[in-house]
């Protein structure tokens, strides 16, 4: 078996490939549903109904999509420049810690600011905290040649332990009856609702806005060109005068900042305080979402809604037909691998020797 490059990959195939791959995944995952002893059709119907079947289901899916869009964008911009940031999970928590530090400790620790300053300060602090956590691995990569995959991964564990310590001590809410949760944000800092009576908040508009902004940045600006050039061919980019080190640092700030914002928006929009289980792996899901979207910022929005739908729908499906909700993670992971294969097949032809 060998690969042969197709002269002109067709546009239609490039769009059809991910859709076909997801359909293929759902077919294969049907075997797992049968193993659990449930009818495949009814299970998938319950899954999609639980994700998109009512205004409430849709609002829950979109609420879940907000942090996923942001971590997806964080992964997409980093992977574009071949900075393999696997640390969005830790960066998200760093952002949440910073947001609570600015917006919750306020008053008690003595600094008073008007709200129109405090709110942007909270978001800025979160973005900076996330960026700072990625800056170390990015510098270690460019200066010392340390593979950033392992360092960013390991920092996730460090960050989670730090959060556990903070929720046990300095940031613990004394009124929380011993639960490890932080003090709450001031009410005025919480994001408004997009649809009354649901949990969907204005963070969705922020996330979609940032996706459009990132797309424009990548397509229309010199910095965006540098990022794409550094990712496509670092040597050629360096030869053309693009500073790869500077680009990687810029990308680290962008990527870590987006993941940090995900933490702040999740706190301000949904929970209003920080807990240790705030993110069920949003940082890791962001990687899948970015890959499903072919690293395209606008595609990230669509694939985040797909993944969020699977996760939300699986919970109500699990209650309805009794298939374990872990099936959602199987579908998402298997979709990633089959989309990778499908998009390869749009560019290469498989030939028998």
């Amino acid at each position: 078996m060998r690969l042969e490059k197709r002269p002109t990959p067709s546009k239609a195939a490039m769009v059809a490939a991910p859709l076909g791959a997801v359909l293929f995944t759902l077919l294969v995952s049907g075997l797992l549903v049968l193993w659990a002893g449930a009818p495949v059709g009814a299970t998938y119907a319950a899954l999609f109904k639980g994700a998109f079947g009512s205004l409430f289901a849709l609002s829950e899916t979109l609420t879940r999509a907000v942090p996923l869009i942001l971590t997806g964008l964080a992964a997409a911009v980093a992977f574009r420049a071949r900075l393999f940031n696997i640390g969005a999970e830790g960066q998200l928590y760093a952002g949440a810690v910073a947001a609570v530090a600015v917006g919750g400790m306020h008053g008690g620790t003595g600094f008073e600011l008007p709200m129109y300053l405090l709110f942007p300060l909270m978001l800025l602090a979160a973005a900076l905290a996330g960026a700072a956590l990625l800056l170390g691995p990015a510098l270690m990569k460019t200066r010392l040649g340390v593979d950033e995959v392992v360092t960013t991964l390991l920092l996730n564990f460090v960050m989670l332990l730090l959060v556990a310590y903070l929720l046990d001590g300095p940031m613990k809410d004394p009124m929380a009856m011993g639960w490890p949760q932080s003090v709450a944000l001031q009410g005025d800092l919480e994001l408004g609702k997009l649809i009354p009576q649901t949990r969907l908040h204005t963070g969705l508009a922020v996330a979609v806005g940032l996706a459009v902004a990132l797309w424009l940045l990548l397509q229309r600006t010199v910095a965006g060109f540098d990022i794409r050039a550094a990712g496509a061919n670092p040597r050629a980019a360096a030869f053309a005068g693009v500073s790869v080190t500077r680009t990687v640092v810029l990308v680290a700030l962008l990527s870590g900042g987006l993941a940090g914002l995900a933490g702040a928006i999740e706190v301000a929009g949904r929970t209003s305080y920080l807990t240790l289980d705030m993110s069920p792996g949003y940082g890791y899901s962001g990687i899948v979402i970015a890959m499903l979207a072919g690293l395209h910022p606008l595609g990230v929005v669509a694939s985040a809604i797909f993944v969020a739908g699977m996760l939300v729908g699986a919970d109500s499906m699990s209650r309805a037909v009794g298939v374990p909700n872990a099936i959602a993670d199987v579908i998402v992971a298997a979709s990633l691998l089959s989309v990778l294969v499908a998009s390869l097949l749009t560019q290469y032809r498989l030939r028998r020797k």
Partner: protein
Amino acid sequence: MSELMDILANGAFWVAVLRTATPLLLGTLGVLLCERAGVLNLGIEGIMVAGAFTGWLTVYAGHGLWTGVLVAALAGMVFGALHAWLTVGLALSQHVSGLGITMLATALSYYGYRVSFPKVNTPPTIAPFEAMDWLPIPILGEQTALTLLALLLVPLLAWVLMRTPLGLAVRMVGENPQAAEGQGIPVMAVRSGAIIAGSALMGVAGAFLTLSAFNAFFFNMINGRGWICVALVVFASWRPGKALLGALLFAFFDALQLRLQQSGDGLLPYQFYLMLPYLLSILALVLVARKAAYPQALMKPYRKGER
């Protein structure tokens, strides 16, 4: 200080060190074999979960402990074959394929657990491997046979890699696949074989946790051990002997933090002791980075006739 001496003088401490080192050693040898052939395998974290789950399920279903180990190895080989097809056959990104396999293997294991035990809150236990009482060696005698197996694999893998034609072929496809092809070495087959064999070791590393260190399967029981193995391979400069040294050093600090935490000296909150292993891994990566002798073709896909 005297407290530290007390800990170090205690035999039980060193038994714990060797026990903690065993899954790290098995996993590190697995990653090492893959990387010597030029392929990064970030599937390790998920493959260890799959090994832990399938090995435990096999023994729970009434089969022998060694059958459980074998099934765990086979589970590793299945995911290894998938990684080989994606990275060697299709030349996809090794980073992304590995992460995808970690997610898939973890999700499948959790799904399989839930389907097998729908209403169970505490997982049922099995009778794990027993200590090798018959072995008249102080600390080793208190370990199980899987630890002995892991230790014996170190010289075996070193000998195969450095002294046999097969090992030469593995190293050549990891250093310079074009040249290897020229020598008539089937690059794709050697790389795939190394990934599948390495992944089998990762499966056994996971099974050690459910069949020897503990007696049941828990969610999150691998808890980053796989990623630490990836860091340990760099620390070991891709040498089996140094991998043993790294795993022991690492396990030493891990066991030490556990004891210090239990002794409750109140010096630091316990979370900071738990951070130590991860921070040490990063430090190890930084320290050896300058002289790291990466296999030259690591992470570079090989396509016939393309450069």
